[in-house]
């Protein structure tokens, strides 16, 4: 759901992507490889990290296979925090891996099969607009039923829920990159007859790497946002609780234990900052070689952690002894499995060869038929549920949708009102943008949901109660996308244009109208689009809040969905489905009618260079 405007012009893109994480270094990092390697502190650190990871895995595994404990008592002592943080991290990691695998498979198929593309893209568009909590009842009930005697089902449900908040934008990004591969590189791959798997790994994945990493960072932020929702699942009269940071925060809030709440929050922020430092920065620095443009930029992203890892003797040893042989073995296996393209006998030669495609076509038809039947069955099932929703309820839902829409609009307006001047001020000053952009990135990925309990106490007391407070809660979750994009946009305004406006004495409002607003327009639209989607999604957690053991809610589509999912004694599936559909329709319509058009306008009229 989250994205950053990526301009087509490689130079602008480079400036943008380099901007946040850049410390220029004349010497390319590659040279440092040749230093003699000795075991040192770094290797000890790597060793300890691996040890910690293994311990975490063992701990988690023993919890997973343990008999089903739907309601773990959440301890509030600080001593449990490391383990809880570990559990949450592991869930996020698994969900992310799932998203990655899904992205590569789904994106690859959609980009290479034209017929599949026509179905897969709209599906992705719809999936993207379905709020995570609408998946909750079905996913949870199915997985818990599948593993009735262990915690695996419950843990998987949590992982799948996080997955639904991470996967879609990554898939879109990969699909777009795989769809627009450089033509000459494609021709080289064909002429050198690369096997499909090698073509995928040498061409498709690297060419999409940078966009994929940026979207991955956004996806992680999205995942943290729904951390609490994914660790505390309330389904009718049944409620499930998983040990983790999210449920810790929730439990602390419920108990009114401010000290524990702040401690949990600090742990979460520390976790996010550490991840940024130890994982994303090195990844961005490493991925610099995947830039398609061939110029050697002076500003190369740089990460001390990556340098340390590259220097580490232990890492080198493991790479040489474990990964390289593994890689080679795998390559041999895949080579044997996939025939060389073009080595198949020409079709004129053998009549049986002509029958194989027809068999394949038959299989295709059978598959398509099966899929159609499934879709029809699903539609019929949906219709049966939907006819149970009385007309009056539809009316209520429509009113609720309008209320939520107004709230998202208000949130966007407030967001623009404060981020626009600030973002432009930061972006136009090289000094501040260099310093603040990484900070904004980290701040943006701190989940606003974790702050809700703290803020709610104050906000509910305000006039308007939760109805007004929900706007602020949405704002908390989405304003960063706008700010981030506005900063990027202001940074991308060419300095010659800025100098020209100074020379011709355009200042104040005229400067804004002629230079700044048009210059950042594509970025602003991207930020607003992302924020709008985020606000709709956030409505579920901001219009319906459980706090201190009782429920506060207001009129809104998010509240309708959340309350339908939490209805006692069983989730109200017809209303849940109706409300979800309504929200998907609203989001898709808004995207089509407003955002896509603005985006097209921005691409056509307001792209620099």
């Amino acid at each position: 759901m989250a994205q950053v405007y990526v301009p087509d012009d490689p130079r602008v893109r480079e400036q943008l992507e380099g901007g946040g994480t850049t410390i220029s270094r004349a010497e390319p990092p590659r040279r440092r490889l040749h230093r003699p390697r000795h075991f040192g502190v770094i290797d000890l650190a790597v060793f300890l990290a691996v040890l910690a990871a293994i311990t975490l895995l063992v701990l988690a595994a023993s919890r997973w296979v343990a008999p089903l404990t739907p309601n773990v008592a959440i301890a509030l002592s600080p001593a449990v925090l490391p383990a809880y943080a570990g559990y949450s991290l592991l869930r996020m990691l698994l969900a992310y891996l799932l998203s990655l695998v899904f992205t590569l498979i789904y994106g690859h198929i959609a980009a290479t099969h034209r017929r599949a593309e026509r179905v897969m893209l709209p599906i992705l568009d719809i999936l993207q607009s379905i709020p995570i909590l609408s998946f909750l009842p079905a996913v949870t009930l199915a997985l818990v039923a599948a593993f009735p005697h262990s915690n695996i089902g419950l843990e998987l449900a949590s992982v799948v829920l996080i997955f639904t908040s991470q996967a879609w934008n990554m898939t879109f990004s990969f699909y777009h990159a795989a769809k627009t591969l450089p033509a000459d590189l494609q021709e080289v791959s064909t002429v050198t007859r690369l096997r499909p798997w090698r073509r995928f790994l040498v061409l498709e994945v690297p060419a999409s790497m940078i966009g994929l990493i940026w979207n991955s960072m956004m996806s992680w932020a999205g995942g943290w946002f729904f951390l609490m929702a994914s660790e505390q699942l309330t389904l009718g009269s049944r409620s499930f609780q998983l040990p983790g940071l999210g449920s810790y925060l929730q439990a602390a809030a419920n108990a009114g234990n401010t000290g524990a709440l702040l401690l949990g929050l600090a742990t979460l922020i520390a976790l996010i900052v550490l991840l940024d430092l130890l994982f994303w920065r090195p990844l961005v620095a490493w991925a610099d070689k995947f830039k398609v443009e061939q110029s050697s930029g002076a500003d190369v992203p740089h990460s001390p952690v990556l340098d340390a890892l590259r220097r580490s003797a232990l890492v080198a040893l493991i790479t040489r002894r474990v990964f390289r042989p593994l890689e080679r073995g795998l390559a041999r296996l895949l080579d044997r499995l996939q025939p060389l393209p073009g080595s198949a006998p020409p079709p004129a030669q053998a009549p049986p060869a002509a029958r194989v495609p027809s068999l394949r076509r038959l299989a295709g038809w059978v598959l398509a038929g099966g899929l159609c039947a499934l879709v029809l069955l699903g539609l019929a099932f949906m219709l049966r549920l939907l006819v149970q929703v009385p007309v009056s309820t539809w009316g209520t839902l429509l009113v609720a949708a309008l209320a939520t829409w107004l709230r998202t609009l208000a949130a966007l307006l407030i967001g623009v009102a404060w981020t626009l001047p600030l973002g432009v001020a930061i972006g136009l000053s090289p000094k501040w943008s260099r310093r603040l952009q990484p900070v904004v990135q980290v701040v943006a990925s701190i989940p606003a949901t974790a702050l809700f309990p703290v803020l709610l106490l104050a906000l509910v007391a305000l006039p308007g109660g939760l109805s007004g407070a929900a706007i602020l809660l949405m704002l908390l979750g989405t304003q960063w996308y706008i700010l981030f994009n506005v900063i990027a946009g202001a940074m991308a305004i060419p300095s010659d244009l800025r100098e020209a406006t100074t020379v011709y004495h355009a200042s104040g409002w005229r400067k804004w109208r002629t230079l700044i607003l048009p210059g950042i327009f594509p970025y602003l639209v991207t930020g607003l689009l992302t924020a709008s989607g985020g606000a709709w999604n956030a409505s579920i957690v901001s219009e319906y809040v459980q706090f201190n053991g009782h429920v506060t809610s207001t009129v809104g589509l998010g509240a309708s969905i959340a309350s339908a999912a939490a209805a006692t004694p069983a989730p109200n599936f017809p209303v849940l489905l109706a409300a979800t559909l309504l929200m998907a329709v609203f989001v898709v319509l808004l995207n089509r009618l407003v955002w896509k058009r603005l985006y097209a306008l921005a691409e056509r009229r307001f792209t620099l260079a």
Partner: protein
Amino acid sequence: MTQRVDRSGQDGTAPPAPVLLEARRVSKVYAAQGKQPRGVRPPLVLDEVDLQIASGDFVALLGPSGSGKSTLLRILAGLLRPTSGQVLFRGVAQHGPNPHLAIVFQSFALFPWLTVLQNVELGLQAQELTRTQRLRRALAAIDTIGLDGFEDAYPKELSGGMRQRVGFARALVVEPELLFMDEPFSALDVLTAANLRKELLSLWRQQKMPTRAIVLVTHNIDEAVSMADRILVLGADPGHIRVELESLPSQQRDPRVEAYTRLVDLIYRIMTSPQTDIETLLAQAHPRPPKGPLTPPKPARPYQTLPHVAISDVTGLIELVYTSGDREDLYQLGRDLQLEVDELLPLVDAADLLNLADPQEGDLVLTEIGKRFAEADVLEEKQIFRQQALARIGMLRHIVADLEQDEGHTVSEDGYLAQLQEHFSEDEARAQLETVIDWGRYAELFSYVEERGIFRLEAPETQEEA
């Protein structure tokens, strides 16, 4: 008078070298996207091209843009499938990419995320080799092409010339029987290109590479004459082979030799006179018997095709010819303007189309109108241009007439685009319309609102304000 480098090691009296690659009546039609109006044939890129490449051949494909030379190369390589006709390798019909062939690209086509060594090794992935064999061959190729010491560098660390060396190493490492080059030197600066050409030729002549034939696509006449043994000049609309010329013996390939200048001049003349019968052109030149059958001139495309040039460039061209006395050699013009022939040709086309100048026997001669045009000041210049454009360009006339008839003096572009699409591919139709818009705006015949895709007769207020 030919002195081919014979790959078989025998002299010229030997039986003809075996044919490696052959194209038989190869045609290519633009993939018609969307519905084509009935009765309208989709535009042809290549029209029944026949071509043979024998062992020992170094063939240059030379032609203006739009003559389909890159398309022909890709069909020969098996990257594109011909709409009709077939390609045979050693007498066997080809389907899909030819494994005995490598291509060097204009853009180098290096994987930015792979090192020089990895890029070169990539070519060997399709061959059953052990890791050490692969490494040894890749290092040998890198050594041959003069890239020693750069094995671990990434392409972005290299200069353009070094990058293309990697391109050559990647092609040569597979020991291809056929080496295809798609304008391999045109992205390089003059000195680097000359250096690389020389090195490639010495590898080829001294048989340091196992390649049996080379096909070079280029728009640089000097490059074709100085490198290739056979030169195929392609014509456009639709792409076809206009003539096949034998190049000079290698010791005569020197700009200081008269035969060289004559051949370059002849090719220049052929390329700048697309409508003239090829026999006439050859007769005018020093009697050099063309090799192979001549293709009769194709009927001109019935629909007017506009060259995509900016009017200011045409103005510049006319003024340059005017200062050199109303007449100038095209080859000299190209040198003066530092334009390749396929960059100069559209300008000449436009001047011809507007009846400002006439190409005559390799010269460009100003017409009376052209002289007035060159002498005119800015406003007069526009006046003349408007007259000529209206008189000579059907589409502009058409649009202006429609605008005058329309009550609101506003017309949508859609009709014209549809009309163009009956004669051009989708992209080309769009490009044609854009040229029409550009010229019409310059002539102040109409204004055009891009967002809505409409033409308007009167100038918008903002223009007057400015």
